[in-house]
C-alpha cells in the first residue's frame, strides 16, 4: 500500500516507524532537517514542500497514494491538506490530525470529507479514562465505538470466590461478558467450561464497559470505582480528559495555574471545581485535601512539572497517579519515579493512525502482552465458511470470538447464536495466527 504522510514531526515519525516495514511511504514536510532525520533512519521517500500547496502535493505524488495521513501540528494545514488530497486522489483514504475536539464532532456528523479524524488530546483522554474506569486493569482497549471493552486483569489473592477457584461453568460472571483467555506463566489457554481462574494467573475479558467495571470490582475487592479525580492542568489535554471523565459520571477537580485558563475551564464545565493554583504548593494541596482524591492526572504542558507535581501528590497521599509524558524519553523517568501510568499522546495518536493502515476489513487491532496476542475487529465476508454456523460448533484454532457487532449494537454470543453475513467479529488470537483468522472469516 502506498502511504502519503504530511508532517514529519513527532506524530509523523512515530507513524513512519510503525509503517515503514510493510508499506511504501512518502513523507512531505516544510523542514528539510526533519525530513533528512527520517530519511537517514528509514527507507522512505521524502519531499520538501508545503502541505497547503496543491501543486506541492501533486508533485510529491499524492495522486497515487492509497492512504493519506495529514499529521502536522497545525489544524489548518491538516484540514487543507486533507481537502486537496481528496481532490488529487479521490480513492485514497484520508486521515487528519486535529487538536480541536470540535472537528472530531464535525467529522462524526459527516460534515468533514475525510475518512478519519484523530485528535491526540482526545485519544490521550480516552486512554486515561480507560485506565481510570477499570483500576484493576493492566491494559484496556475499546472496540465498536466504545460498546465493547477488552481488559487484561491480574488475578490476585482475595479475588471474589464467585469467580476465582471454581470451574468457569459454575462461576458467576457479570452479564454481557466473556473470558477470552487465561494466561498462566506465559502459557495461554482458550478456556472451556472446566477451566478455572486461579490467583496468580492473568485473564483477558471481553464485555460491555459496565461489565468490565464489575469484573474489576470482583477481582480487586475494596477497590471501589473511581469517583474523585484531580486533574492538574486545564489546557487542551486536561480539558479533554475532564470532558471524557465527566461523561462517565466521574467527579473531577481541576488545578490550573493560569487565571484565564482556569476561568475558561470553570465556565465550560459546570460540575467541575476548578482551582487557580500551581498545584506545587504543599499548603494548597493540604488545605484542599488533594491527598484524599482516589486518583490524580497530570496534564500540564511541561513533563518536568508533571513529574514533580506527581511526586508531590504521592507524598500527600494520592494512591494512583497518571501522568502525560509529551516526550517519549520522559516515560522511563516517570516509571522510575513511581508514577503508576504514563501516557504519551503522540504514541497513542500514532497507534490510532496505524490501525487504519491494516486490511480494510480489519477495523481495529489491539496488542496484548507486548505483541504476542492480538484482538482483531473483522467484518465477515459473504463467502466465509462460518456463516450460518453456531458458535458451539466452531472449531477452536487458537482463536476465540468474543463479541459480534450486528446492526450497530454489540452482542456477546452464546453457543446457540449464529454468525451472519456482514457481522463485525471481535476475535482474540495469537499474533502468529492473525492472518489465518482474517482469511477464514
Amino acid at each position, binding site marked *: 500500500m502506498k502511504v502519503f504522510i504530511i508532517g514529519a514531526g513527532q506524530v509523523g515519525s512515530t507513524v513512519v516507524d510503525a509503517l515503514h516495514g510493510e508499506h511504501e511511504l512518502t513523507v512531505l514536510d516544510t523542514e528539510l532537517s526533519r525530513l533528512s532525520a527520517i530519511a537517514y533512519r528509514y527507507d522512505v521517500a521524502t519531499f520538501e514542500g508545503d502541505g497547503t500547496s496543491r501543486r506541492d502535493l501533486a508533485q510529491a505524488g499524492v495522486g497515487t497514494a492509497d492512504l493519506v495521513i495529514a499529521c502536522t501540528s497545525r489544524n489548518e494545514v491538516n484540514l487543507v491538506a486533507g481537502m486537496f488530497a481528496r481532490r488529487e486522489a479521490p480513492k485514497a483514504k484520508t486521515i487528519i490530525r486535529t487538536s480541536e475536539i470540535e472537528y472530531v464532532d464535525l467529522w462524526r456528523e459527516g460534515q468533514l470529507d475525510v475518512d478519519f479524524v484523530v485528535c491526540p488530546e482526545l485519544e490521550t483522554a480516552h486512554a486515561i479514562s480507560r485506565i481510570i474506569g477499570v483500576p484493576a486493569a493492566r491494559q484496556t482497549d475499546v472496540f465498536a465505538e466504545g460498546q465493547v471493552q477488552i481488559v487484561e486483569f491480574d488475578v490476585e489473592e482475595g479475588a471474589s470466590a464467585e469467580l476465582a477457584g471454581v470451574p468457569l461453568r459454575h462461576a458467576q460472571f457479570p452479564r454481557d461478558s466473556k473470558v477470552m483467555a487465561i494466561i498462566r506463566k506465559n502459557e495461554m489457554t482458550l478456556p472451556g467450561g472446566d477451566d478455572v481462574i486461579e490467583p496468580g494467573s492473568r485473564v483477558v475479558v471481553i464485555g460491555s464497559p459496565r461489565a468490565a467495571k464489575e469484573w474489576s470490582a470482583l477481582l480487586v475487592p475494596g477497590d471501589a470505582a473511581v469517583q474523585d479525580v484531580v486533574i492538574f492542568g486545564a489546557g487542551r489535554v486536561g480539558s479533554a480528559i475532564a470532558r471524557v471523565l465527566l461523561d462517565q459520571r466521574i467527579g473531577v477537580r481541576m488545578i490550573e495555574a493560569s487565571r484565564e485558563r482556569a476561568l475558561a475551564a470553570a465556565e465550560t464545565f459546570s460540575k467541575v471545581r476548578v*482551582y487557580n493554583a500551581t498545584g506545587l504548593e504543599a499548603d494548597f494541596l493540604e488545605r484542599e485535601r488533594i491527598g484524599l482524591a482516589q486518583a490524580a492526572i497530570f496534564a500540564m504542558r511541561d513533563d518536568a512539572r508533571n513529574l514533580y507535581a506527581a511526586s508531590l501528590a504521592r507524598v500527600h497521599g494520592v494512591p494512583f497517579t497518571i501522568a502525560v509524558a509529551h516526550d517519549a524519553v520522559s516515560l522511563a523517568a516517570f516509571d522510575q519515579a513511581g508514577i503508576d501510568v504514563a501516557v504519551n499522546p503522540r504514541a497513542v495518536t500514532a497507534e490510532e493512525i496505524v490501525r487504519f493502515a491494516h486490511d480494510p476489513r480489519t477495523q481495529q487491532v489491539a496488542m496484548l502482552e507486548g505483541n504476542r496476542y492480538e484482538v482483531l475487529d473483522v467484518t465477515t465476508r459473504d463467502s466465509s465458511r462460518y456463516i450460518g454456523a453456531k458458535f458451539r460448533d466452531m472449531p477452536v484454532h487458537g482463536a476465540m470470538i468474543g463479541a459480534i457487532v450486528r446492526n450497530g449494537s454489540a452482542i456477546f454470543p452464546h453457543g446457540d447464536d449464529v454468525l451472519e453475513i456482514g457481522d463485525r467479529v471481535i476475535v482474540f488470537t495469537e499474533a502468529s495466527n492473525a492472518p489465518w483468522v482474517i482469511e477464514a472469516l
Partner: protein
Amino acid sequence: MSSAPAPTRPDAHPSIAPPRRIGVNIRGALGLVGTLVKWLALAPLLPLALALGYGESPWPFVAAAAGTAALGIALERIGGDRSEVVGFREGFLVVSLTWVLAAAVGTIPYLLSGNPELERPIDAFFESMSGFTTTGSSILTDVEALNRSMAMWRQFTQWIGGMGIIVLALAVLPRLRIGGRQLMESELPGPEIDDLGTRIRQTAQRLWSLYVALTVMLVVILATLGWTGVDDQLSLYEAVAHAFSTMPTGGFSTQPHSIADFAPATQWVLIAFMILAGVNFALLYRTFVRRRVRSALRDEELRLYAGLLVLGSGLLILQLLERELTGSDAAFRNGIFQAVSILTTTGFATVDFTGWTTLALMTIVALMFVGGSAGSTGGSIKVVRHLLLGRVLRRDLRTTVHPELVAPIRLNRIAVDERTLRAAVAFVLLYVGAFVVGAGIIAFDTALQGPDLRPITVMAVAATTLGNVGPAFGHAGPLASFSEFSDISTGAMIALMWLGRLEIIPVVLLFTRQYWKP
C-alpha cells in the same frame, strides 16, 4: 520612513484653550432631550380626542401639546449641531432629564383641569411622576372629581412610561442620532438587554409591538366581560383605562375603590395580566411569537418569579383564612390579587389591607422589594438580581473555605460576566441605601409636620414609591391618598419614584463630580 518635522514659525505660539471644567456635552444632551420631548406632544392628542367626543374641555390638552412641542423645539435649538456628538457619557443625563421633563410637561393638563387637589404644581408633579414611572400612588382623595378625558390622561401616562419613553422613541422615530443601546440599557429595567433582533431598533420595535398586542388583548377581554354582563362596571372606557394601567404595572384606577368594585372574574383576568406584565418581555416574545415554550419554562428567573408569587400569595391567604378577614373564597382571590399586585409593582387593590395583621403587612413590604422580572414593565429590584445576589453570596461562602476556587456564576447555564455581577450587587446596595435615606426623610418630616405614621407605614411609603408600586398603608393606603403629606415628603417621594424607575444609577451618577469632570 521618516517624516520631516512640521515647519514652525518662532512667532506663532500654539493657542492654548482655557481649562475646561466640564467634560459633558450639556448642550448636545439638551438637544437630544428636546427631540425626545418634542414627540411627546403627540401624547395629549388621545385625551384631546376623547374630550371632544365627550364634550369636555379640550383646552388642557391643547395647551399640553403646544407646551410640550414648544419646550422640545426650544431644547433642540439649544442643542443645535452639538447634538451630533452626544456619546456614552451624555446618555445618563439624557435619560434622567427626559423623564423629569416628561413628568413636568405631563402636569400641564392637571394644572389646567381646575381640580382643587391638583392646583399646586408639586401635587400635580407628584401625580404626573407617579403616572409616568408607573407607580400609581395618587394625591387625589376623590378620583371621580376628574372628568373622563382627564382620568384617561392619567391612565395613559402610565402606559407611555411602562415600556419606556426612550424605547418607544427608538422604535418609532426615524433615526435617533445616537447608538441607542446605552440609552435603552439605562431605561429598560434589569442588568442587561436581551436582544430580539440584530439592531437595537428592531428589539425596541418588537418589545413595543408585544406590549401593544397584550394591551389590546386585555381591552378585548375586559370589554367582553362588560358586554356579556359578567361585570356591569366594565364599559369600553373602563376596559381601556384599566388595560392602560395593568400592562405597565401602573396601578391608577378610575374607580374610587381601585379594583374592589369589579366582579371576581374581572379580578382574575387582571391577576393573569399583571403576572404577564411582570415577566421579561423578551422571554414572552420568544414564547409566544417564536414558540419556544420549553426553553422559556426552564428560565431560572421565571421559575423564581413563579415561586415568589406562590410564596407571597400563600402567606397572605393563610393570614386571611386564619383571621377570617374575608370569606374563604374571597380569601384566596384577595390573597393572590394583593400578592401579585404588590410583587409585580402594579399596586391595584381589591381590599383595604391597612387593617391586616403585622405578618401580612410585613409580607407586603417584603414583596415591594421583589419587583417583576428584568425586561418587564415592573419596577423595584427585579427577580433576577435577587437570584444573582443569592448566588454571589453562596459563592463567597464557598471561596471562604476554598480560596483558590474559580467559580463563575451561571444564569440559565451561561456564565455571567463579573462586571454584571458587581453592577447587580452595587444596584441592590444603592437601592437599599436610597430606601433608607428616603424613609429617613419621610420619618423626620412626618414626625414634625404630620401625618402621624406607624413605623411600618413609613417603610411602606418609601418602599412603595422607590419600587414604583403604589399603595402603602394607613393614610397612604390603597383606598386613601398621599394628599396629607407635607411638600418635603412629597418631594422626597417624587425623587424616589424617579430614582426607582431609572434604576438609580443614571440619576445618582449626575450627583457625582466624576461624572462632570473632563
